């Protein structure tokens, strides 16, 4: 199933979603979003898919919004644009499967927000991240005001958002923006290797952990109440029995998500 603006490929238990709008450096245009949202929904619903890799075609993750439309955009249209973006971010952050961003080239503006919404960020050493919004008189969107301080702390988040500083992959790895560093042109392969690990992890435990992160911030009591309920469910799962057996038999567990 391949549309023109988003390419979908399943490799074993990993689904690769590729934004394929290279003429606009994979900007999150209306047509891209129109295909990306159902593609992500389908991957989340696919029982054979256990992890999702999100990337951009031709060596560029996503350069942001479709700036060509901004100069003539009425405020109410702009608001709708950001709300559409939210639908996709919800699927990434509230979905039950790990999403890994494979970043080459630019991850700017809305494309930066997209990467930061993912669970794990793999980037080429020379990839470039920037909250470019205020360069054109806009504020950060794509959930960045929520995700970025959690990843890199308040001080660095302020600098990136208020000064639109550019951070490359290597620097990003040093400050916690990037989780796995790859050589130039190697981000997708590195992301697939990482995705295989996420795909092998216990699926319900991954889903519960993701769900906990998506509710951030909670106070300690709220977290403890949630973990008691969540762990109760997991303790009676087949996967937990398999995990305990595998541990005692000193072998790798085979989780089935039940």
């Amino acid at each position: 199933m391949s549309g023109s603006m988003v390419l979908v490929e399943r490799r074993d238990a990993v689904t690769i979603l590729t934004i394929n709008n290279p003429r606009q450096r994979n900007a999150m245009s209306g047509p891209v979003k129109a295909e990306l949202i159902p593609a992500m929904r389908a991957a989340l619903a696919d029982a054979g898919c256990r992890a999702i890799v999100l990337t951009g075609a031709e060596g560029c993750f996503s350069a942001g919004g479709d700036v060509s439309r901004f100069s003539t955009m009425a405020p109410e249209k702009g608001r709708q644009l950001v709300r559409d973006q939210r639908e996709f971010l919800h699927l990434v952050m509230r979905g039950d499967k790990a999403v890994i961003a494979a970043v080459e080239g630019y991850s700017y503006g809305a494309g930066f927000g997209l990467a930061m919404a993912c669970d794990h960020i793999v980037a080429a050493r020379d990839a470039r991240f920037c909250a470019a919004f205020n360069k054109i008189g806009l504020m950060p969107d794509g959930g960045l005001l929520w995700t970025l301080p959690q990843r890199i702390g308040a001080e660095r988040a302020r600098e990136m958002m208020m000064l639109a500083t550019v951070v490359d992959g290597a620097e990003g790895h040093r400050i916690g923006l990037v989780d796995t560093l790859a050589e130039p042109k190697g981000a997708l392969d590195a992301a697939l290797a990482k995705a295989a690990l996420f795909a092998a992890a216990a699926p319900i435990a991954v889903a519960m952990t993701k769900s906990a992160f998506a509710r951030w911030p909670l106070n300690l009591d709220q977290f403890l109440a949630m973990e008691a309920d969540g762990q109760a469910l997991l303790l009676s799962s087949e996967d937990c029995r398999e995990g305990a057996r595998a541990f005692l038999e000193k072998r790798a567990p085979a989780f089935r998500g039940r």
Partner: protein
Amino acid sequence: MEPGVDLDRDGDVAIVTIRDPARRNALSPIIRSGLVEVFSTLMTETDDSRAIVLRGADGTFCSGGAIDTMEGIGSFSGRSRLQGVHRLVQLLVRGEKPVVAAVEGYAFGGGFSLALACDHVVAGRDARFGASFGKLGLMPDMGLLWTLPQRVGIGRARRLMMLSEPVGAEEAHALGIVGTLAEPGAVQEAAMKKARAFADAAPLPNRITKAALAAWPLALDPMLDHESQGQGVLFGTEDLQEGLKAFYEKRAPRFAGR
């Protein structure tokens, strides 16, 4: 010797030792209830201790849940078990005395959570930390979803928790999990030194600071309320007068905790 939890004292530093080396100091029911009992005593106003060291016997901190006691556990009994151990988490996080974890060998699963519920982690260079829950098909518990992202940021927390990736002490130090690195064999000594520093610090401000950190995350205004009320109380203490006097006389203050 039967497994149990030991309490020793060195001046105003209390030393709590998890002792079940045959199970690598796993959190079996007897250890859990022993820890709750000891910390309930230590955290009271009337107890003379000013700082607490938490360690494991025979060169291992704590290997987490006792897997041999998990066999056949149902979801609701599992939930009750979690709620029981939450008393321990609450005592460590909300108790108003500083706790230093002295980590040798392994701090895995619930043992990792236990270390991170402490105010400061001292670890031997050869110690290892791991949120190993996922290997058993379980989600992180004992407050780790609350403590770990605060220390390492959300990207690294996701990696450590969703992939159950273990980290050595040196990496843990670089990530902010470990506060003080010690040479193997010198962990207990380093932890005592740190605990003494906590014991000598003004106790009343640290009680209020610990309570404020336990309320994390708060919005700005509730945190400012916390601060104005706490500081108001501290302005009325003898320790403030002593602190001011010592400051002008250029000597070290002697705080009485009043």
